C-alpha cells in the first residue's frame, strides 16, 4: 500500500480517524451555510434602509452562487471509488473516464462561479466606483463563492478519508 503512493509525504495520522471525518462533514455544512447567509445578507442589505445608493442586487448577482452550488452538487454526487477505475476489473466501459468528465464539469461550474462573482463585483460595483457600504454586496458575493469552494474541498477530503478508515478496519 505504501509503495505505490503518489505523494512524497504521508497523510497525518489524525486524518484517518472516524471522528475527524465526521467533524469534516459538519464543518463543510457550516461553511456552506455561512456562504448561503452571506448571499442572503447582501440581498437583504440591498433592500434595507441602510442601502442609500442606487445599486441593488438583482438576478445577475445570484447567477455565480447558483453555478457554484450546482458544481458542488455535481462533484459530491459522484462516487469517489469510480475515479480510480483502472484498478478494478469490473468497472469497464470507461466508467472512470465518464466520472472524470462529469467531475471536470462540476469543477468548471464551481470555478466559473468564483470567476463570475469576481466579474460581477468588478463590473457592477468597482468600475462605477461604489463606496464601501455598497461595495459589500460585491465582496459578500465573492466571499460566498469562495466559501462554497472551501466547503466542497473540505467535504471532498473528509469523504476520501472514508476509504482509508474502512481499509484499516478491514485489516
Amino acid at each position, binding site marked *: 500500500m505504501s509503495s505505490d503512493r503518489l505523494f512524497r509525504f504521508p497523510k497525518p495520522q489524525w486524518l484517518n480517524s472516524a471522528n475527524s471525518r465526521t467533524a469534516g462533514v*459538519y464543518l463543510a455544512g457550516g461553511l456552506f451555510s455561512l456562504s448561503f447567509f452571506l448571499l442572503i445578507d447582501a440581498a437583504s442589505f440591498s433592500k434595507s434602509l441602510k442601502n442609500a445608493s442606487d445599486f441593488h442586487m438583482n438576478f445577475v448577482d445570484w447567477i455565480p452562487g447558483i453555478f457554484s452550488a450546482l458544481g458542488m452538487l455535481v462533484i459530491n454526487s459522484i462516487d469517489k471509488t469510480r475515479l480510480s477505475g483502472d484498478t478494478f476489473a469490473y468497472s469497464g466501459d470507461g466508467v472512470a473516464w465518464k466520472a472524470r468528465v462529469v467531475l471536470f464539469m462540476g469543477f468548471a461550474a464551481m470555478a466559473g462561479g468564483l470567476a463570475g462573482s469576481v466579474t460581477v463585483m468588478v463590473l457592477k460595483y468597482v468600475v462605477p466606483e461604489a463606496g464601501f457600504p455598497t461595495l459589500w454586496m460585491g465582496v459578500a458575493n465573492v466571499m460566498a463563492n469562495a466559501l462554497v469552494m472551501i466547503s466542497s474541498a473540505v467535504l471532498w477530503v473528509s469523504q476520501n478519508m472514508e476509504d482509508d478508515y474502512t481499509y484499516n478496519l478491514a485489516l
Partner: protein
Amino acid sequence: MAGLKTIILLSFILAIGFLLVILSSALFHNFLPLLVVATYVLAPVPNWICGRAQSNDDFMDGGSSSIVELGRFLTGFLVVMGVALPVVLAHTEQIRYEAMAMSIVGGLLIYTTIISFTLFFREQEEF
C-alpha cells in the same frame, strides 16, 4: 445519583437559554429573534432521520454511509444558520445588536442542552 443532577443542570441551562431568547424578543417588541429557537430545535432532526435510514447491521460500514453524511451536512448547515440568522437580521436593522447577542447566546445554550440530552439518553440506552 449523578443522572438526576445532570438533568437538573441541563433544564436549568435550557431555562436560561429560553429566558435570554424571549428577553431579546420582548425587550425590544420585535419577535424576529424567536426564529433562532426554531432553527436550533430543527437542527438535530436531519441527523436523527438519516441515522434511522442507515443500515445498522453492517459493522464494517459503521457511520460512513452517504445518507448519514448528508444528515450531518444539513445539521451543520442548521447550526451555523442559528448564528448567522440574527447577524443578518441585525445587519439589516431588523433587530438591534443587543437582541442579536442575546439571541445567539440563548440559542447556543438551548442547542447545547439538546445535544447533551441526546448524548445522555443514548448512553443510558446501551446498558
